[in-house]
């Protein structure tokens, strides 16, 4: 410990024994009590101090200007979308707020560097644990309390009290059943808004009918249930291509109508919407991780991290010429999960 600090501690009236070691052990980075501090400014004379004061004060005034400007912008600047100069509203607010904070901060730094006293002090830390007599005192209070309450004298009361506390602990156990596979129901993951006979509605709620799409056309379609357009698992892309380029496997040959085929757009990798359809290559492309599916070939994976084909929605045309779903998807849409069965049969649910 340097003498100057010792002297200062003495001046504060603390009892410091010069012989007592302040720190123990080795100091790989040097003794922290050895001050290496160099004062970075000399005592200012009267005139310089006045100048510094003015500089600090003007920075603080700049902060005031920032706040006033912020409030004035907030009140008077046109901020409605489309109004003349509205696009400067946010930048002005930000600029004035920055000015307010910067003025205060810069003023404080300048203040500390020029006018504040530069000195180093040491604050001693006390032990973290309580003193022995405090611990004994606390133990005595607890014992006395237990004796006063009669825990030792009435054993039935004591045991029932302990049992009640234990029972309260058991109360938490049912909450654990809300976690993990106790909760899991395969059906919830495998079911979407599609059902047998559901018309394919476009984004404005109109049913799509045969002939609406030209070859090379697509349509985002949703089930005809309430809130269907916003069901994240039910979004489907209806694609029309030339029937001769569309390869449909035998078990799904009734799932398509005259070159029209419908796939879930939820990527089987991580669930991004796969709606980038290329009408010449028949690729469906996921923008998140570049998984590429072949829409002309059961949406099988051509490239990328997706492991499974996109689920296909079986469609047909009803008596009035509108597209309807034959049922829900035959497999869960979207990414895999632990409990997902590895294989699903091509049966319409």
């Amino acid at each position, binding site marked *: 410990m340097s003498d100057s600090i010792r002297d200062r501690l003495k001046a504060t009236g603390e009892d410091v024994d010069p012989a007592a070691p302040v720190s123990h052990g080795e100091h790989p980075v040097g003794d922290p009590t050895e001050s290496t501090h160099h004062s*970075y400014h000399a005592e200012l004379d009267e005139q310089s101090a006045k100048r510094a004061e003015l500089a600090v004060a003007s920075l603080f005034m700049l902060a005031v200007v920032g706040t006033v400007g912020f409030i004035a912008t907030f009140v008077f600047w046109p901020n409605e979308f489309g109004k003349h100069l509205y696009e400067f509203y946010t930048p002005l607010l930000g600029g004035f707020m920055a000015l307010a904070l910067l003025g205060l901060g810069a003023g404080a730094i300048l203040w500390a560097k020029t006018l504040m006293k530069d000195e180093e002090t040491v604050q001693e830390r006390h032990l973290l644990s309580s003193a022995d007599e405090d611990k004994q005192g606390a133990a005595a209070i607890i014992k006395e309390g237990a004796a006063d309450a009669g825990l030792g004298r009435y054993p039935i009361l004591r045991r029932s009290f302990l049992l009640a506390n234990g029972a309260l602990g058991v109360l938490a156990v049912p909450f654990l059943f809300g976690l993990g596979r106790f909760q899991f129901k395969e059906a919830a993951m495998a079911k979407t808004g599609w059902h047998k006979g559901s018309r394919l509605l476009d*984004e404005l709620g109109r049913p799509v009918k045969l002939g609406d799409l030209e070859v090379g056309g697509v349509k985002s379609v949703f089930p005809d249930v309430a809130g269907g357009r916003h069901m994240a698992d039910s979004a489907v892309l209806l694609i029309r291509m030339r029937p001769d380029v569309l390869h449909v496997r035998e078990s799904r040959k009734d799932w398509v109508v005259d070159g029209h085929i419908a796939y879930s757009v939820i990527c089987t990798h991580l669930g991004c919407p796969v709606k980038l359809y290329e009408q010449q290559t028949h690729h469906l492309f996921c923008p998140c991780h570049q998984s590429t599916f072949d829409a002309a070939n059961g949406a099988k994976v051509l490239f990328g991290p997706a492991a499974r084909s996109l689920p296909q929605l079986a469609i047909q045309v009803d008596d009035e010429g509108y597209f309807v779903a034959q049922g829900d998807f035959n497999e869960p849409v979207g990414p895999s999960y632990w409990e997902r069965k590895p294989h699903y049969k091509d049966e319409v649910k």
Partner: protein
Amino acid sequence: MTSTRSRLSGYAVVVLALALLGGLYTAFLAPKPKAEDPANQSVAVKEGRQLYLQGCSTCHGLNNQGGAGGPSLIGVGASAVVFQVESGRMPLARGAAQAPRKTVKYDRTQVDQLAAYIQSLGGGPELPAGKLDDGELALGGDLFRTNCSSCHNFAGVGGALTRAKYAPPLTAASARVIYAAMQSGPENMPRFSDNTLTPTEKRAITRYVRFTTSESKNPGGAGLGRYGPVPEGLVAFLVGMGLLIVVTLWIGARA
């Protein structure tokens, strides 16, 4: 004499009546000549054929049958011509995964003549008359986000497709080009027929694209590709943190 005069007057009455009838017919009943006069149309087709033979037939064939270089143009419609030629994509500079937007080689009249010629071959989608970008902005935004944004990005700045192809940015596209693209489905873009997106809806989308790519402003100055809060946060973090580090170093150096 009397009979001659009466015979003459009879002729005169008939002639007068015929003239009157004819006049009435021309004035009220005769079909009006259409705005697109067939005579003008055929002139446009002839001119268009000349332009076609000079500029396009090397690849697309003397009879539009297509060839080694280009596809057949029978049935692609006037919209395809407007899209490809008015955006400078055709004539093609070189074979590549995709035709890029270039300097336009034909003026508006020539584009219309070429379009009339191609339309005369086998029909196909045609641009409607009148303004194309006067639709409803909010409806257009809704439809754009459902039908277009997956490839062209919700701010219309385009994006990548498979195997070196890309959905181009819509920032430079005119209303005619945007509308024609939806109708004709150029290259790998799906085709949106009038049953898929009605003309009203196409007008709304065109209006939205024009608005969002050229009229709307970026509060804060730079849009940063309009990718949203992630790049904005990144820039704020890097620039802000960088400045703070510089200031901290400066304060430290002065100490």
